């Protein structure tokens, strides 16, 4: 291999453009190195290093929001950088930080190696960043598989628990199945777009831009249509849209709480990032095909998620099913994005609100989960408001935001989604959302009720000792406060974020 070739290769690959991803990967490796280098007694600092360094990355991302790569493709068109991508990077790092924080609470209770968990989270986060910026199916698939395999491990991380492993297995098999479906779809698309006999055929059918050109020239190529729907099916698994949502509650329930949170927030957001990239760029010419599919999915997802959550008493399953419903709301945003550019910003805002609220809720859950991570029933939340008012307050804010109650961020997210859905003329879907939100109030409120209402008026003090709840460390307390305050603040003051969302 000639030096020129290598130089050429180096020149075409602007590594600077993926500096955050590289940093995260390096931190991940650094953690492993530290595990080897540091004596056993000092392993306790490793999570701290993971978190602090990620905060540094986060700060770097925020302060260098304008990268200069916006709108450009790098790595021979494998990646495409945009303001959205930059937002998602911040989003993923944020989610990663909170996941690591949750892990610092949940992991020490298990006699398990810990550093690997943080390493996995970091690598998966980096992969998600890449995934959300991919502009090419090869990149997409590889990043997606990295994410997926990382999640398989994270989900089954507590290997001493049969439930965790069962969740891991279910996730593994269904994940692999959906990967296969996705892959087959990619293959079909590649084949269709590369067909030299067709107009606008392209040599690189897996590049999103090329593919779009091809699809625009061949408005009803059946092979391509089949590829499109199969790819959508694969993504639907990630975001948990009906009928590919069925794994959600089982896996959420079995997975370690930090992994559940990671799955619920980051994985879902990555799925939506990909879905948006595909529907808004690669598959845009096939919107006629996609809108009915996505619409039907959204309706079914909202109704199924909310209805199934209605009588659920296991909080992790509840969060999972409600997350399904949230995916449904977001799908409406995806549909609206075909007609209204605001919708994309609305989705980002919604996801951010969802992140804050979800981690607030998971933050409470992880404290209450108990040593074996199995205290997950609503009954375990009884008397929470009396015994742990701080956690109860955080829980209330988180759930309120998830339910979309003003003045919390979740409401603002829903409002933006409503507006763009209305602008896009999706009246029927709005009606479904309405029904869904009303149903969701019941179970979110039921949870709050479980945590608040049985207390203070209970005539007979049962005299039993307060349930064992992990102590809230100052750092975690601060983080939970940040989540709560953020959830409240974003509800009415969006500041620069609001302007960015509108301007993007």
């Amino acid at each position, binding site marked *: 291999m000639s030096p020129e070739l290598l130089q050429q290769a180096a020149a075409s690959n602007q590594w600077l453009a993926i500096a955050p991803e590289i940093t995260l990967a390096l931190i991940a490796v650094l953690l492993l190195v530290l595990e080897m280098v540091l004596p056993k007694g000092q392993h306790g600092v490793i999570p701290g290093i993971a978190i602090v360094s990620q905060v540094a990355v986060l700060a770097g991302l925020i302060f260098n929001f304008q990268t200069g790569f916006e709108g450009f493709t790098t790595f021979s068109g494998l990646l495409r950088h945009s303001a959205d991508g930059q937002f998602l990077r911040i989003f993923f790092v944020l989610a990663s930080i909170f996941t690591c924080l949750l892990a610092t609470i949940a992991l020490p209770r298990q006699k398990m190696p810990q550093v690997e968990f943080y390493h996995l989270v970091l690598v998966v986060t980096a992969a998600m960043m890449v995934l959300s910026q991919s502009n090419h199916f090869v990149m997409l698939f590889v990043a997606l*598989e990295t994410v997926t395999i990382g999640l398989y491990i994270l989900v089954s991380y507590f290997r001493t628990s049969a439930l965790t492993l069962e969740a891991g297995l279910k996730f*593994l098999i269904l994940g*692999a199945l959906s990967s296969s479906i996705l892959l*087959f779809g990619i293959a079909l698309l590649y084949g269709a777009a590369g*067909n030299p006999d067709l107009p606008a055929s392209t040599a690189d059918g897996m590049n999103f831009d090329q593919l779009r050109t091809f699809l625009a020239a061949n408005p009803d190529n059946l092979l391509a249509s089949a590829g499109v729907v199969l790819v959508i099916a694969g993504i639907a698994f990630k975001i948990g849209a009906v009928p590919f949502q069925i794994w959600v509650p*089982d896996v959420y*329930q079995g997975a370690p709480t930090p992994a559940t949170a990671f799955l619920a927030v980051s994985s879902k957001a990555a799925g939506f990032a990909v879905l948006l990239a595909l529907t808004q760029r690669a598959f845009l010419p096939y919107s006629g095909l996609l809108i009915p599919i996505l619409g039907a999915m959204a309706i079914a997802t909202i109704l199924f998620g909310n209805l199934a959550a209605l009588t659920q008493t296991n909080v992790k399953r509840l969060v999972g099913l409600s997350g399904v419903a949230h995916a449904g709301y977001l799908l409406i945003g995806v549909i609206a994005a075909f007609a209204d550019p605001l919708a994309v910003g609305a989705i980002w805002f919604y996801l951010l609100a969802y992140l804050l609220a979800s981690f607030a809720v998971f933050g409470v859950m992880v404290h209450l989960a108990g040593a074996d991570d199995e205290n997950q029933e609503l009954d375990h939340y009884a008397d929470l408001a009396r015994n742990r008012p701080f956690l109860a307050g955080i829980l209330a804010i988180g759930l309120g935001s998830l339910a979309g109650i003003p003045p919390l961020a979740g409401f603002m997210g829903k409002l933006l989604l409503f507006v763009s859905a209305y602008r896009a003329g999706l009246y029927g879907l709005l009606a479904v959302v309405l029904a869904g939100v009303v149903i969701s109030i019941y179970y979110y409120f039921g949870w709050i009720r479980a945590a608040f209402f049985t207390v203070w008026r209970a005539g007979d003090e049962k005299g039993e000792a307060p349930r064992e709840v992990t102590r809230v460390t100052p750092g975690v307390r601060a983080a939970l406060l940040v989540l709560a305050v953020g959830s409240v603040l974003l509800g009415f003051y969006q500041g620069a974020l609001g302007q960015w969302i509108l301007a993007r």
Partner: protein
Amino acid sequence: MTPGLESYIGLSALLFAIGFFGVLLRKNTLVIYMCLELMLIASTVALVAFSRFNGTLDGGVFVFFILTVAAAEVAVGLAIIVALFRLRQTVEVDKLNHLRN
């Protein structure tokens, strides 16, 4: 006379379907996992065929990645299955239904 593209795609689809069928039918997790591999392979057949007929190499390169990924996935998957077996002494799907409702 050589077979046309549709023959290869048909074969690929058939393999894919058989794999899917296997995932649906078998109770043994290991076999299910094999069937999943079969589905991945089915996709590679399609990719290679398209690559050949379209005259571009990207499909082939993609297969390269797929094989690597599949190998990694198998490793992780089997590790999970083994760990589960050690706890539950079974790999039968019907008995792995403690997470429900």
